[in-house]
């Protein structure tokens, strides 16, 4: 099973995983890694490496990072040379939920790409959709 590490500043990763678990139940082979002030780049890389190791079962690991260019994303990228990783940055809740269900269906690289597209499609102006829906003739 492809492992998942949600990596973020502050408590975002922990809370996102907790929230996803509330919705679909506990997530297998999923862990988090957080960067707090006072931590060095080296220590963060070591923490990420350890997190990846806990969920790696031979199919690779998908790191879902909060912010492109942020330390969780950048330090994960620094591990790409030595570990079987893909890094998706800009993770949102729809991506995490979908990652959990899609990961048994495709290899790592395809999973990352699919989730990136899925995540973007799932950012909608719901109030606009509502207006459109309300204007449809009754069906």
């Amino acid at each position, binding site marked *: 099973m492809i492992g998942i590490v949600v990596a973020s*500043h502050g408590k975002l990763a922990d809370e996102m995983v907790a929230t996803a678990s509330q919705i679909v139940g506990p997530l297998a082979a999923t862990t988090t890694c957080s960067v707090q*002030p006072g931590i060095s780049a080296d220590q963060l890389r070591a923490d990420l490496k350890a997190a990846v190791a806990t969920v790696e079962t031979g199919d690779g690991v998908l790191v879902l990072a909060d912010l492109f*260019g942020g330390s969780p*994303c*950048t330090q994960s*990228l620094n591990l790409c040379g030595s570990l079987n990783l893909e890094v998706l940055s800009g993770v949102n809740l729809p991506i995490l939920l979908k990652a959990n269900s899609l990961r048994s269906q495709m290899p790592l690289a395809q999973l990352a790409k699919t989730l990136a597209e899925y995540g973007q499609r799932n950012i909608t102006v719901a109030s606009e959709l509502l207006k459109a829906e309300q204007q449809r003739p009754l069906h």
Partner: protein
Amino acid sequence: MIVLTRVDNRLIHGQVIEAWLPHLAVGRILVADDEAAHNALMQAAMRMAVPAGVKVDITPVDKADFKGAAADGVRTLVLLREVKSVAQARERGLPATPLNLGNVHAGAGRKAVTRAVFLSDEEVRDLKQLQDGGMPVSFQAVPLEKPLGLEATGA
């Protein structure tokens, strides 16, 4: 023109890109760091994080062209990983700019000055010397945070 020298153990990352770059309106980041300069993967990861339109130079501390960056018209942010690199950079021609800290990690022998900056006694002495040499020191992780001066170290 070098507008700010920042000491940040994580070099190019979220706070620098999202908060400092727009605040300072820089067109160039000069990263003077031996580790980054010799690690192609690290460089690639850092470069891609920076928005298009901002130039990124990554060189070892003793090869950085501080004088060139100071002399041309491009607003430049200098990034150094550690306090001890600042004195080295000054010897290489880094002008006396404001000195911002940044992120300095916790560790043995280091005392917390702010949430993000942990300094050894030697580093506090170095900073005092740098300030006496014309670089006003401020502890400020992001521009909207209230900056603290050297008095925050108790020195």
